[in-house]
């Protein structure tokens, strides 16, 4: 179930439960994202809408939590999901 999400003009980011409300995972997400799309608090993660379009498609957030729990979609490419680098 998606708990935290946000859409910009080009990028949509979604974070599923239980990752979204996990304080440690939230901290990790806020730590890895180079353009501050995630904000961490005790209750979990919040998406910072104003920074969404700054996403550089680095894929670092995709490695937080179980596979597929964090998704980055390219709205300009029919919603294609960013694939984690192996």
């Amino acid at each position: 179930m998606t708990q935290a999400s946000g859409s910009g003009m080009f990028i949509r980011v979604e974070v599923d439960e239980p990752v979204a409300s996990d304080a440690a995972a939230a901290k990790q997400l806020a730590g890895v994202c180079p353009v501050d799309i995630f904000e961490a608090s005790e209750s979990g993660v919040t998406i910072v809408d104003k920074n969404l379009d700054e996403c550089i498609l680095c894929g670092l957030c995709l490695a937080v939590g179980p596979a597929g729990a964090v998704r980055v979609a390219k709205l300009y490419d029919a919603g294609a999901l960013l694939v984690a680098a192996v």
Partner: protein
Amino acid sequence: MRFYEFEAKALLGQAGVPVAKGGTATTSDEAARIAASVGGEVVLKSQVLSGGRMKAGGVKFAATPDEARAAAEHILKLEIGGQMPRCVLIDSKQPVKKEYYAGVIYDAVAKLPVAIFSDMGGIDIEEVAEKNPEHVARVHFSTFQPLQEFKFKELVASLGISGNELNQISRIIARLAKAFLTYGLTLAEINPLAQLEDGSFIALDSHCDMEEEAREQQSAVLDELGIGREETRLARPPTEFEIRGAEVDASDHRGVAGRVVEFDGNLGCVIGAGGGSLTIFDALRKHGGKPANYCEIGGNPSVKKTCELTKLILSKPGVEKICVIMNVVSNTRVDIVARGVIKGVIESGYDPAEKIAIFRIPGSWEEEGYKILEKFGVDYADRTVPMSEAARRAVEKVKA
């Protein structure tokens, strides 16, 4: 950044170039005092950054302190090229036998400084180079290796000068070159470099320009000369548009998206990368385009920064379309610029397909960028289309 003559004189004097005895004054009484302390006949020169002082009456000779007072009174009230003088320079008048030219500039093609010498001084060096090229000699020198005075000797000797004159002139050019390197200058020029009746040489008039980026490094020198950080020394004060451009650029540390210069045209420009701005600007004009602005983007600016720059350009009255053209980029991402520009156009209330005449940025992440442009129906070109051709297409669309 251009220096006044009295500042250039101080810089070159510090570097060991012989200069005339004198001083500067901001009142006529002060000028008379300086003339008295210099003794004998003096020359008074208006200190403005524009040329044409002689013609405008900004240079006068005085035989006595009273004459110097009267001359300073006149000069200090005289506007030249839209500028009031900063002060008046009072120098002792020299008994000149012959005039030469010595200068150092940066040769952007050779990527080296070049020393220029002519035995026809006191007139515009470009004019000499055009009409009497055999009277102009040049030599490049390294910015890394220690200065080699023999190079300047060869330079001077190539115009048939020998003996004591050769030694004196080449030493002065070596000092000029040292000042050029030491102070981060883009121009160091003595015109005329005068040979006096006693055979000695002296710089009678000098011009220096400092690289804008060297200001921080040279802050101690600038402080010594009394040049404040707020003194931009630009040809004109920045316009509101340019001030807002600088604010956009300063709003985020990532990349460059600003440095705008305002023009009157109808084609907004989002241009840059590795000297691309100048090339593209020239290409637009060559094809009959009327740019509304010059700007520089590069170094991977954030989406927000590019968006704000685009909005600023589109807010300018008379801008019909924008062109987005850059060199092949490696450290700027095509997709990030595409997002910023499209967002700026949409937030300004326009359709990107209509408003963007052409988007030609090849390079890093171009496939992703082209997907974005296709989605919004923007006409784009890849690296097979030269910048000049992209400029031509943009101009054609605005004309249509």
